């Protein structure tokens, strides 16, 4: 694989590399800058594959000082923020930078996957007390590393859901204005309910009955809290936080007046094209599958477990599948706010037709021709603790307006390949993480704990068939 990537990079860089006489052993990442312009328009399968190769090379690259890794004068914050003085050490396992490569943490069972407890990340907003050196939850929230398989489909679902919710709000406002009366509407998309809004004739909207979504009705599908809008936003955030590789689309001169915001001597460390390559690779990672064990007893238990999973109410949040209308992944996308490129920031966004990828053939289609994305999630936030069960309420900070006891439903596809469990990766078995559910998951959890041992075992058998089977 590495040989292929190197060949491809040389193909992109071509004569330029030769002219610069950069030796092949240089301590730099050749995939940075391998594409000079951001891709645009519908990409052929070959073009997408080439982008993916670059993206994978970037995802697995061990970034070096000479790439611009390090952020001596920038904190981990998503808004470009300078510390009062230069950070004392380049690497810090707590406040970051804390990884050499994306794949340093995202690697189970393959690159792009999840991480074990050792790969937990410590989240702080990065504004005050940004240089903490303790894992005490008083200073940060500790989170496990999520896998990225099927992430392109997740983002596409979120975009469609956002568009539907916004359309419902627009329609409610139109009706209220037309009829001169308050209009209360249920917000439902892909059969997932997000509460109610009440539109007033004067254009005001009462948001107090919203449930599980931000007040701007944007479904933010990524991170344990559901606070990241897109793979692109996540990539820009994480590149700075974990590697000190700053994307110019947020840390560059347009917003900060500087090309080297982190003052490490390297300007524009990640170009928009670099970010696009990373996004292309992540967005096209294959979706996890339901694995068929060869063991007959496991097969039988898993089949029953799937039924129990439904019967016990687990699927009320861990929805078996959500329908997706289109497999066209636009990058930059339609929802991101300023600071992450969105479709308005480019002349012609790239379109990755995911149907060109072989793994997409395994997706079932419903009668309407929609692709059923088997994520075992609902892209909605729920309260997950209650007074009797606060095991998952172990954070002290809310994150981006989301309370400490509220989390996005974990998508369970791939859960059989990504132990340990829970947002802190501190549950070693599926049984214990199920028992840790509280809050709105209490009825399902109670059904599980009150079930017979055989039934509980069957559910575990089922969940262990939700696997990330192949990397490519």
């Amino acid at each position, binding site marked *: 694989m590495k040989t292929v990537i190197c060949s491809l990079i040389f193909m992109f860089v071509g004569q330029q590399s030769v002219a610069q006489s950069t030796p092949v052993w240089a301590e730099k990442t050749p995939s940075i*800058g391998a594409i000079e312009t951001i891709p645009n328009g519908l990409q052929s399968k070959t073009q997408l594959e080439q982008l993916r190769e670059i993206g994978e090379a970037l995802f697995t690259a061990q970034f070096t000082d000479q790439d611009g890794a390090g952020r001596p004068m920038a904190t981990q914050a998503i808004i*470009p923020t300078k510390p009062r003085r230069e950070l004392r050490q380049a690497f810090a396992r707590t406040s970051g930078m804390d990884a050499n490569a994306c794949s340093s943490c995202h690697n189970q069972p393959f690159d792009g996957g999840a991480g074990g407890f050792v790969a937990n990340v410590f989240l702080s907003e990065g*504004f005050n007390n940004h240089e903490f050196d303790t894992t005490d939850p008083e200073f940060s929230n500790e989170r496990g590393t999520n896998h990225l398989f099927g992430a392109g489909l997740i983002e596409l679902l979120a975009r469609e859901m956002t568009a539907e919710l916004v359309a419902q*709000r627009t329609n409610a406002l139109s009706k209220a204005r037309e009829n001169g009366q308050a209009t209360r509407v249920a917000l439902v998309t892909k059969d997932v309910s997000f509460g109610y809004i009440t539109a007033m004739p004067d254009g005001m*909207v009462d948001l107090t009955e919203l449930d599980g979504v931000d007040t701007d009705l944007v479904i933010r599908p990524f991170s344990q809290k559901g606070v990241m809008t897109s793979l692109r936003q996540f990539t820009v955030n994480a590149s700075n936080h974990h590697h000190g590789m700053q994307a110019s689309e947020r840390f560059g001169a347009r917003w900060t007046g500087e090309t080297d915001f982190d003052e490490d*001597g390297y300007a524009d460390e990640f170009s928009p094209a670099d970010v696009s390559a990373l996004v292309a690779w992540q967005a096209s990672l294959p979706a996890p599958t339901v694995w068929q064990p060869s063991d007959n007893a496991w097969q039988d238990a898993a089949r029953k477990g799937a039924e129990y999973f439904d019967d016990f109410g687990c699927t009320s949040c861990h929805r078996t599948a959500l329908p997706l209308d289109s497999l066209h992944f636009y990058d930059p996308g339609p929802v991101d706010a*300023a600071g992450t490129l969105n479709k308005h920031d480019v002349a012609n966004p790239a379109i990755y037709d995911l149907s060109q990828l072989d793994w997409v053939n395994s997706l079932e289609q419903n009668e309407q021709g929609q692709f059923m994305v088997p994520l075992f999630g609902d892209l909605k936030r729920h309260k997950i603790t209650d007074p009797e069960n606060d095991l998952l309420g172990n954070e002290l900070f809310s994150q981006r307006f989301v309370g400490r006891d509220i989390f996005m439903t974990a998508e369970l596809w791939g859960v059989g390949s990504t132990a340990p469990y829970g947002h802190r990766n501190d549950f070693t078995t599926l049984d214990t993480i199920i028992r840790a559910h509280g809050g709105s998951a209490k009825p399902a959890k109670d059904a599980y704990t009150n079930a017979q041992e055989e039934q509980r075992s069957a559910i575990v058998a089922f969940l262990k068939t939700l696997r990330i089977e192949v990397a490519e």
Partner: protein
Amino acid sequence: MKPIFALVSLIIASPTFAQSEFLGDVPHFVEQSEIAGINHQYRGPFEYFVGGGAASFDCNNDRMNDLFIAGGEMPAKLFRNTSKAGQDITFSEQPISVTGEISKVTGAYPINFDNDEHMDLMVLRVGQNQILRGLGNCTFAKANDHFLFYGGDAWTTGFSAIWERDATNPTLAFANYIDRDAPGSPWGTCEDNVLARPNADGNYDQNQPLSPSFCSLSIMFTDWNNRGNFDLRVTNDRQYHRGGYEQLWNLNSGGRPEQFDARDGWQKLIIWGMGIAQTDLNADGRPEYALSSMGDTMLQTLDEDAEDDRPIYRDMAYERAATAHRPYQGDDLKPSTGWHTEFADFNNDTRPDLYIAKGNVERMPDFAEIDPDNLLMGLPNGKFSEQGGAAGIALPRRGRGAIVEDFNADGMLDLLVVNREEPVSLFRNLGRKTDWGYTPFGNFLAVELRNNDVNRNAVGAKISVKTGNLTQTHTVQIGGGHASGRLGFIHFGLGVAERAQVRIKWPDGDWSQPYRVFANNFVVLDRDDPDAKYWYPAR
């Protein structure tokens, strides 16, 4: 990634270095007063060399700000905003039906005198000033008698209002210019400014002269020391006063007004003062002031020797590259003439920009004849960069008053300029110009405050918007600028921030809880409601 040394050498070698200092988004404006249906001029003889203001406010409760524009010797006009969100700006001229035509108007400010649902107007005139009481649906009635308000007979050029502590009705301040009936007029014959405090019944039956006065052109209540008590800042025109200077009146928390003077550290400054703007550049609660003049614009900040009772200011216009002292394009090197001045974030990058209307008074040969308006864009280092030409607002017109407003609710601030003897300019802000069209700037937030039954629009409230480590503050004000004012949504640029926390210090000093809101929304914060509500314009 590029090693930084390569970039540095490129910049040094480039002859366009000076032009490329501003690396952010330059707003691109197009003048579309004709499309908008605004055909209006501010005209008239000597009395109308100054003034030329407008008021922006919502007179029909649709949250899209409408316009009242002074006409000088011509009638003032009222324009109802008919724009749809994100579309061309459009207005519909509407008669001020109950009152008929009003002429001799120099400027106007919106204000809700009686705390009802309808905004009122204070109309400044050469002659009797006039309260227009809003009746709804953009109709008004003359209401001086209703409020027992004596409008005087002065040549009024500035206005400000504040609800002093525990008052149910506003205290009013009027900036008056020349006493044109005095012997020797116009030189050295300045009319006294006036302070009008309401009596217990809410009426204005006694006006208090603020003597001495020095031919004032703008006036503004301001909490300069962040103590919660508003004093009165006045800018004065040295062209006509004799022995005058810039003034700050200590209102003594509702007591007898007294001037701050040298004993208090107030330094004598003599300029052709024409407009006042305030903002809080360093979010320390104590505002900085821009004073427009002929020649240098002043940018004042409290000196390190200042104290709560010692208003010692120093000018930092030069160090911040904000002097704007002569035209930035063309070959006319004579000093320019500044009028309306206002801080606002025109490109949503979180940094205050400074707009200054410019224009020769009337064939004054020692000052620039072609004098384009300034758009000084805020830089990350606190300096400003002139981008008026690149932004498209450098028309050869004689600007006077102005309104900065998001007329079409697209999250980008537009600009209306009242020009003397020339058509009003209405600049629609289209955003950042690219090869593939116009694209939005950074994120924004628009905030509307609803106070309780007194001072509904929360004049005097302080809004703090926090994104990351950055706090932006804004004081809701009536006054300042040049004969022009506005009330309505208050615009904040949020840059790359997706969300913000907002806290309000209400006019009575109470702090709100933090409101958590998402960017790119119009947010209504009601004092009695713990939850922010969002407003969506009609499309």
